[in-house]
């Protein structure tokens, strides 16, 4: 891991949409008066969701003014956490888990699929600049390994072909169904359970 790169191309303005402004005010209300700065992380995440999964510098300034704190403090938080993106990642942001369980179950095959379909390098935008991919640490869905996360949805139990198909659908503007791609409901055993047979609602 190295320090995050700040995009050279920065939008000139950023403002919350009226809906997000309402949400932001709601978040701030959770904290005692004068401690509104505690809302910084939630607000940065809100910025990210509004602005195609990344936080421009103007948005950091906007948040800093919004919470009455110095720019550098917002900058510190934004650079500290790995889940804040500081350069464009495209509308469809794909995160591939490559931590041990996923890796054993073939996560690197999914990486290959992304390299073929999107861009040869991670954190690099596809040609139409709508999509990029990135290897990340454990996303907590080890039972359904290997898996990828696209924006807010998990796609689980994948292999290379299924990944290619999902990416194709995404790039075509469709919304593929999230969840297991081997027909499982959540993380239940495949082909019915094999233990605790005598308990009804286990």
């Amino acid at each position, binding site marked *: *891991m*190295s*320090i*995050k790169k700040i995009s050279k191309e920065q939008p000139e303005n950023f403002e919350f949409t009226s809906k997000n402004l309402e949400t932001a005010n709601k978040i701030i209300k959770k904290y005692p008066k004068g401690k509104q700065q505690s809302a910084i992380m939630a607000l940065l995440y809100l910025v990210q969701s509004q602005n195609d999964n990344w936080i421009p*510098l103007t948005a950091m300034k906007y948040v800093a003014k919004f919470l009455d704190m*110095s*720019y*550098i*403090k917002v*900058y*510190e938080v934004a*650079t*500290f956490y790995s889940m804040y993106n500081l350069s464009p990642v495209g509308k469809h942001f794909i995160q591939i888990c490559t931590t041990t369980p996923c890796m054993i179950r073939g996560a690197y095959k999914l990486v290959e699929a992304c390299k073929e379909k999107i861009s040869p390098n991670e954190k690099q935008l596809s040609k139409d600049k709508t999509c990029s991919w990135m290897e990340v640490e454990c996303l907590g869905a080890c039972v359904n390994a290997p898996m990828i996360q696209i924006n807010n949805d998990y796609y689980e139990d994948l292999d290379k072909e299924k990944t290619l198909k999902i990416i194709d659908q995404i790039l075509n503007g469709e919304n593929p169904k999230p969840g297991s791609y081997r027909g499982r409901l959540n993380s239940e055993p495949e082909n019915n359970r094999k233990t605790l047979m005598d308990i009804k609602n286990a």
Partner: protein
Amino acid sequence: MLKLKINNKDVEVEEGLTVLQACEYAGVEIPKFCYHEKLSIAGNCRMCLVEIEKSPKPIASCATPAVEGMNIKTNTSFVEKARKGVMEFLLANHPLDCPVCDQGGECDLQDQSMLYGIDKSRYKENKRAVPEKNMGPLIKTIMTRCIHCTRCIRFATEVAGVPELGAIGRGEDMQITTYLEKSMQSELSANVIDLCPVGALTSKPYVFEARPWELKKTETIDVMDAVGSNIRVDTYGWEVKRVLPKINEDINGEWISDKTRYACDGLLNQRLDSPFINRKGKFTKCSWKEAFELIKSKVKSTEPDKICGISGDLVNMETLYIFKEFFNKHLNSKNLEFRNDYIYINPEKRENYLFNSSINGIEESDFIFLIGTNPKFEATILNARIRKAYLKNKTKIISLTDVGDLTYPYTKLDGKTDIIKEIINDQHSISSIIKEAKKPLIIFGQSSLSLKSSKYIFESIKTYLIKNKKISENWNSLNIISDNASTIGNLDLGFYQTIDGANQVLENLKNHKYDLVYLLGQDSLEFNKQNEFIIYQGSHGDKGAQIADLILPGAAYTEQNGYFTNLEGKLQKAYKASYPPGESKEDWLIINELTQIINEKKIFKNKEELESSMLNYLNLYKEKNFKKTNSEKINLEFFSEKILIKDKDYYYSNPIARASKTMFYCKNEKINLKSTGTEG
């Protein structure tokens, strides 16, 4: 009091101390990097580990409060092993570039690695490399050397009040930087150089100039403003290499302003090194004898009341005293003045021109009212104290005028003198605040004393404060921030001519009533010369020398012993660190020798006689102050006007600063920042 055991010795310490403080109190030294007594506690360097009985792990002493009955051990092998481990991690990524590092010889890491370092490194991986950051014209950064103690960040946010420094990234990739690498916008910024325990932040103007052990160190007084910060001047031969703060808790604490620190390179440029005579618009070198003879002939051919002397901003008190003696007793002239503008003074009592509450008193005060002053530029260190008071007590601060960012929040009023009138008539809300406050501070700036209604403002507020018992033996809430190092000295020595605070000498000078004008280091005079013969005595070829007919080269503040009285009336002595260049002489000596030529008799036999005579005079003067003066009703005229803060060129305020390259860079940096509009 708490009873503790430190290294098996029983110690009693105050409550509320940390383990580290308790150990230092008991005389046990603890190695540390991130801990600094003037800053908040971070506890992130882990160098101060100690063993505490019943604790299985070593404990960071700087962040642990001392508790009754603690048994602290600092000299066990357990502690040493822990500290060695920490040191090994710190050195893992620290470059081995001490031979080319400016911190070498005064580096905390270097010193402590002598005790806790290991001779070999077990770290086989590549060392971390961090790109350098731009922090402006004063601070050079070599961030690879940084050990992330965060002292600089804490200083910027807490003391300087500019939260512009921060740590971005995390873990091994953590980097200290300003927001998007802009230069630090503070007049105290260079103090981070002293704070940095390693060579990550070093001084840009001093880069590769000298090693600390080659320098001669002289503890002296600063003259860049009237605060009189205590400094240490480091010289190499004649050259003043750098200026560092000296701790004086009553005045500057541990900090000095950037101007104090970096105007010193102006001592090397634009110096006058020989007497000059202006012959038909051209300055030609001459000998001292020629110069003195010329003055003698001029003095003999001029009537005493056609002669005037005006002193400057950086003149020490001995020189002022001997100059006054020279004028009063040998030239029979009383036309002496130190003001180059029409500032109102009332030197009847000493309290009328001092910062009476004292700098330490700021922290005790519960209400601060600024009248026509921008303390950030007029007295930077004092402003840092006001900020400290604000942080400590949440002191309420009101300024009559909007002076921009002062590093603490304050209420801004519209700057009209009508407000003063309302206050003294008990019609303004501030009146009740002043009355209720136990220790209010009313601070006058020079800008408020150069108005038409200055007399009204000053005298009526003073009467109001006396009436409400805010000027008493315990607490004097009347405060004046003077601009220059020699202002109070001038006032104490009676170096002025005034009726009702007016400036007659300047008035007469502007009306061309004098034939012979002696400028004693006066460089800010706005004056259209006609037929006057002007003698300039000073250290720098600046505005004063430009209009002169005869130039006598004097010495700067680092080149002669001399007393200065700071704005709170403390008499401090500046010591000689270097010597005057070329043929220039110490200022008092010039006057003494000149008198010998003119009247064939020296004023004083030697410097000691001069000093004791001056100190005698000052003591008599102070006694005079205890006499009660008749407080007659004086006519006070009121004018409704707006107090405008004089836009003083902070980095160019005196001839030394104007000759300094570093101050030029600082000024440019500020102008550029303003014009690009990237500051917000």
